[in-house]
């Protein structure tokens, strides 16, 4: 029988037993909805975590250090020679890093202790320089006020806890001025018999002296969380200012004393550089290229991979859990089709007497099963999506009450829609295997005798 005729006859049969077919289809839909809802939750949570983590800058950055820096805190092995040939992390190296493929930007970390004066009261804190690219960082999503108006703006963004120290009404701080007191390095003339060395512009001098300075900044924003707290980010910075401004202050940093006694061949040397990749997946390649250049690197790739493995296992468990309902629906399809054989036994006999081959009868049942599976799949995807929306709505109502920003924990990508429908059809076909085979094997003479 031709496919078109098979389809017409199958649809006619389903229409004839509309209640039973609908209930079976609904069973498939519930199974698929369960699967879609659970998987979309897993995918949504993974997307949310990935987005948060990639926005944090933890996973798309590589921290570059001089190799000897990495060993500086350990006792050098007796047989190892001094790292005379280790490359300096200077401007040449920075330029070279910037030219690496898939590198978005390279910047040095500027973080220094300071005393902030506001309203005549001193407060000790840590200042961190923030590159302009951090504007897209998820940490600034819920900012009160605004991000820096420009890379050279004399502006500050405060971390909420620090802002609370300054004022009981933190939001009133926006637009107000504060003064940052810091220790500036001031270059000294070269001294006879002393090797030149220090970081930055003090490199061609005989060292530097510390001079107290002040910088007036306007508060433009307050953020809830520390941006990229922890390794490689701007953690511990409770007062943030544009990186360019922070660099221009030439503030003494914690590693300056160590660098002052190192030989740097008269060039500016960075304690470390942050290399940001286009995406977290490109970090591994960039890290390898940097190691080939002779530098030490560190990234959180391994942590990222662990996270991926965790979510894969999590998704698999959700798939198994969600599939249980689909397995029950499969039994429903088998039941419906077996009942259809009993009811249509005589009809099958008539079809065979009129020339239907075994495969025609088998295909007829397969088409009926797959139609129920397809419709169940489409409905199930819709139901699953609705469940996701409803749960998201509930979560967001709760988050709003907790004064937290809304979030979307369900994600239904197109491939999940396609997979759910295809799976529903495949499962339905598998469920139809036994009934179809049984119907095809019916003896026409016996089937015609059936009343």
């Amino acid at each position: 029988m031709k496919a078109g005729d098979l389809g017409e006859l199958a649809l006619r049969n389903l229409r004839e037993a509309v209640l039973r077919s609908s209930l079976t289809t609904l069973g498939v839909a519930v199974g698929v909805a369960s699967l879609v809802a659970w998987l979309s939750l897993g995918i949504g949570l993974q997307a949310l975590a990935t987005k948060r983590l990639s926005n944090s800058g933890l996973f798309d950055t590589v921290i570059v250090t001089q190799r000897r820096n990495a060993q500086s805190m350990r006792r050098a092995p007796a047989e190892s020679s001094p790292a005379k040939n280790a490359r300096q992390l200077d401007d040449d190296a920075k330029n070279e890093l910037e030219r690496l493929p898939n590198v978005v930007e390279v910047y040095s970390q500027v973080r220094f202790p300071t005393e902030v004066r506001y309203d005549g009261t001193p407060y000790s804190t840590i200042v961190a320089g923030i590159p302009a690219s951090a504007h897209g960082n998820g940490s600034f999503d819920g900012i009160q006020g605004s991000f820096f108006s420009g890379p050279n703006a004399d502006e500050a963004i405060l971390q909420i806890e620090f802002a609370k120290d300054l004022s009981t009404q933190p939001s009133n701080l926006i637009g107000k001025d504060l003064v940052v007191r810091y220790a500036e390095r001031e270059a000294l003339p070269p001294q006879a018999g002393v090797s030149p060395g220090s970081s930055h512009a003090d490199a061609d001098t005989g060292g530097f002296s510390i001079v107290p300075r002040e910088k007036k900044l306007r508060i433009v924003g307050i953020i809830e969380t520390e941006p990229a707290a922890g390794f490689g980010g701007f953690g511990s910075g409770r007062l943030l200012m544009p990186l360019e401004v922070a660099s221009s202050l030439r503030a003494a940093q914690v590693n300056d004393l160590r660098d002052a006694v190192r030989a740097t061949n008269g060039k500016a040397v960075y304690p470390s550089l942050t290399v940001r990749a286009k995406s977290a997946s490109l970090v591994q390649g960039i890290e390898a290229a940097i190691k080939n250049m002779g530098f030490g690197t560190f990234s959180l790739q391994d942590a990222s991979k662990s996270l991926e493995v965790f979510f894969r296992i999590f998704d698999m468990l959700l798939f198994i859990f969600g599939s249980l309902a689909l397995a029950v629906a499969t039994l429903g399809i088998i039941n419906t089709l077996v009942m259809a054989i009993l009811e249509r036994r005589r009809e099958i006999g008539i079809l065979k007497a009129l020339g239907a081959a075994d495969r025609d009868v088998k295909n007829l049942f397969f088409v009926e099963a797959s139609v129920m599976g397809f419709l169940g799949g489409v409905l199930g995807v819709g139901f699953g999506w609705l469940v996701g929306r409803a749960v998201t709505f509930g979560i967001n109502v709760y988050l709003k009450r907790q004064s937290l920003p809304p979030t979307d924990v369900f994600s239904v990508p197109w491939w999940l829609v396609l997979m759910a429908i295809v799976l529903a059809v495949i499962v339905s076909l598998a469920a139809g295997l036994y009934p179809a085979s049984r119907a095809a094997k019916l003896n026409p003479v016996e089937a015609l005798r059936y009343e």
Partner: protein
Amino acid sequence: MTTGDGLAVRAERVSRHYEMGSAVIRAVDDVTLQIRAGEFVALLGSSGSGKSTLLNLMAGLDRPTGGAIFANGRNLSELSSLELARYRSRTVGMVFQSFNLLPRMTLEENVELPLRLAEVDRAERGARVQEALERVHLEKRLTHRPSELSGGEQQRAALARALVNRPTLLFADEPTGNLDSATGESIMLLLKEIQQKLGMTIVMVTHERPLAERFADRIAALADGKLLTDGVKS
């Protein structure tokens, strides 16, 4: 199509035995029968004589447990399941005592069903259905369902369905069994007309000797699965 010797169907020492526990039911037992092309043969016998079983064997609905049936130039026992289905679809037309129309389909759809199974082009089907229904004078009842027709009309519709694929063999199993005598006679007249106009070979199962004697060219009488007489019209 004939077997090559002017015969439409040839049954050679055909048996159909059923095992029921330790007992063997000999529904058809060593029957040899030759049916010429264009002949109207009545298989006559009482209930349980094996006439319907023999008809089913010749129609390719069942397979013999012994002997061979030749039709359409081939031994039906040697045909695969698919080939046997094709034989039923393209060579054979079947009419049953209880009409066996599908109740949820209209008359037009019922008659079109064999064309679907034979994969006849959709464009050709309308004319073929119309032609078959005109032959049984039901061309104006296309959209009616079987429940809206009388018994005689239903049997005529079943006859139209059997003819729509233009078969060469028409097998009728007690076609008047569910009809009153007047309606039964009209069906028999129709069968006779079809035989004469289309030159079709008709094998009809009946237990009514007068009907068989009046319309059939030849009578083959069966009892207890065996052929008692062949060709006798008293």
